């Protein structure tokens, strides 16, 4: 596998391959395969469809006998949206804002640290480098949830639990991001270029900012996206760390509503179910938009780790 990440992240070969493929007579299997793809797509999209359809229903409509895969007669998106954002003093909006805060601060912080460390490991020989890198690789295998309980007890002693820092600090740790940056920087930033910068009198940090950073951009976007997603989707850590529901991210918040609604059963929790369904839909929209708009970056970037 001698493919460099540059090739993968840059414009891929599709145009050439498409032409090549049109010429070859090996496309007979294409229609059955497309049908298989269509069926797979239905499977992967059904839950979203369910969410879109059912968030339009009133609480009564949700439990009423109509089909759960099609809209009811009265489409109540607006009413549900108002309910969602006013329930419990507008707590849902706050949860969304918290999620955004944790994801952006945690994600950006993790990315900055990963870029610096990955570049340092890739481009400098320093005492203890091999040992620290071996430890880093080992740490990729440490399950993060195993850290949650001891981190909670540590933070409790420092008075940090139930603060935003209890969620943000642990999300700064992204050993896999450092690994990805290291693999990418090794090939994407040629030593000759750095030497040239040095000969021209640029200091090490100036060469990093001016020469290396622009070359690392695809990997930076990928690590950023992966870190932001990991923080946005985090559930275990904030569940453990936070007790004040005004600090909850949306994942923990919806989990709380869900467990409340289940406890009261279908009868008591009816009104809650319709906002849980819409709340789930609203909470996934930002990430879907992020993925769709940034897809040309992450698709190549995800390959970095697998091509080494």
């Amino acid at each position: 596998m001698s493919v460099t990440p540059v090739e993968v992240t840059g414009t891929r070969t599709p145009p050439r391959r498409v032409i090549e493929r049109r010429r070859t007579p090996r496309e007979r299997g294409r229609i059955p395969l497309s049908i298989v793809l269509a069926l797979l797509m239905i499977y992967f999209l059904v839950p979203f469809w369910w969410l879109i359809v059912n968030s339009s229903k009133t609480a009564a409509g949700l439990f009423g006998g109509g089909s759960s895969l099609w809209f009811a007669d009265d489409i109540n998106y607006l009413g549900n949206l108002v309910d969602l954002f006013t329930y419990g003093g507008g707590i849902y909006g706050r949860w969304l804002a918290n999620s955004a805060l944790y994801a952006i601060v945690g994600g950006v912080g993790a990315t900055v640290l990963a870029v610096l460390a990955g570049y340092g490991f890739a481009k400098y020989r320093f005492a203890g480098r091999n040992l620290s890198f071996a430890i880093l690789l080992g740490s990729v295998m440490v399950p993060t949830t195993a850290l949650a309980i001891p981190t909670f007890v540590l933070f409790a002693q420092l008075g940090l639990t139930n603060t935003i820092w209890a969620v943000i600090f642990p999300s700064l740790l992204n050993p896999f991001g450092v690994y990805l940056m290291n693999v990418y920087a090794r090939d994407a930033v040629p030593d000759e270029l750095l030497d040239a910068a040095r000969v021209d009198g640029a200091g090490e940090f100036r060469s990093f900012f001016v020469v290396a950073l622009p070359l690392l951009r695809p990997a930076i976007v990928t690590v950023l996206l992966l870190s932001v997603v990991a923080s946005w989707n985090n559930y275990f850590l904030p569940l453990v760390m936070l007790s004040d529901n005004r600090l909850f991210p949306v994942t923990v918040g919806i989990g709380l509503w869900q467990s409340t609604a289940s406890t009261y059963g279908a009868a008591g929790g009816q009104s809650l179910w319709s906002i849980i369904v819409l709340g789930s839909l609203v909470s996934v929209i930002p990430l879907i938009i992020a993925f769709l708009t940034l897809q040309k970056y992450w698709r190549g970037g995800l390959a970095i780790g697998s091509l080494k």
Partner: protein
Amino acid sequence: MTATLDSPAVSTKHRRSTVVRQNLTGWAFVAPFGIIFLALLVLPIGYALYLSLFQKSLIGGTRFVLFGNYVKAFSDPSFLDGVWFVVRFSIVLIPLQMAVSLAIALILDIVVTRFARFSRLMIFMPYAIPTVIGALMWGFLYSDNFGPLAEIFESFGRQAPDFLSSSLIFYGLLNIVTWQWAGYYMIILYAALQGIDPTLYEAARIDGASQWQIILRIKIPLVTPALVLILVFALIGTLQFFNEPKILQDLAAGAIPNDFTPNMYAYQQAFSLANYNYGATISFALGAVVFVCVYIFLFATRKRGGFFS
């Protein structure tokens, strides 16, 4: 690989200062992450180990018991059943996930239409969904009250299988996790497939290889490093299973007890029973088991290339 300024013309003194500068700059780049690493990984692990050596009781206070907690854990049916569950779950889930994601990636590598590109994105979509929301969505789909399963089976005059019952929850969870992660793994494999030099296929065709032979003899062997990476991710993820069963717990009345997985058991011990020492013991034991399993696996597959080579 590393920047070297060595040349016959450079004096020893100059060279020594280069080494010092390399050392300092290298550490300057790595140090910010290093501090976070020490504070949020090394320290908690050490602390978990420390906590696990003590036992707290109402009468005796906190006392040092050395490996007493571990002896207790490895003879505690709640912990062992949880471990047995995640092991069984991994054995079924991981091959299934790899097969599904590899099959989709191979199809997408062959079919290059606009529709295929669109479906690639749609199949990936579940990865962007928080596991909590994913579990909740499937919980709805499974349920009697809201789900379409009951309707569909009713129209055939059958009763729908209840994936939230204790006999079928295994499959219910299997489906959720596969749905959530297959697209992500597929993208990794697809990217690896795209990285293969197409002239290899041409050469194979000239030698008379069929599409199947190309897949089995060229494509799959060349994406082995990516398969290893996926297996490692899946193993780490599955053994610390928590979010999905925790969310489904309320919907699946009785099918998911508090000690369903080791992680749920550790959570219950620490946060419902305030038994941090035992919770930390289970966390540490689980972390150590995951680490050892992954390490053995990587050691066994090291010749096949991948991640740590």
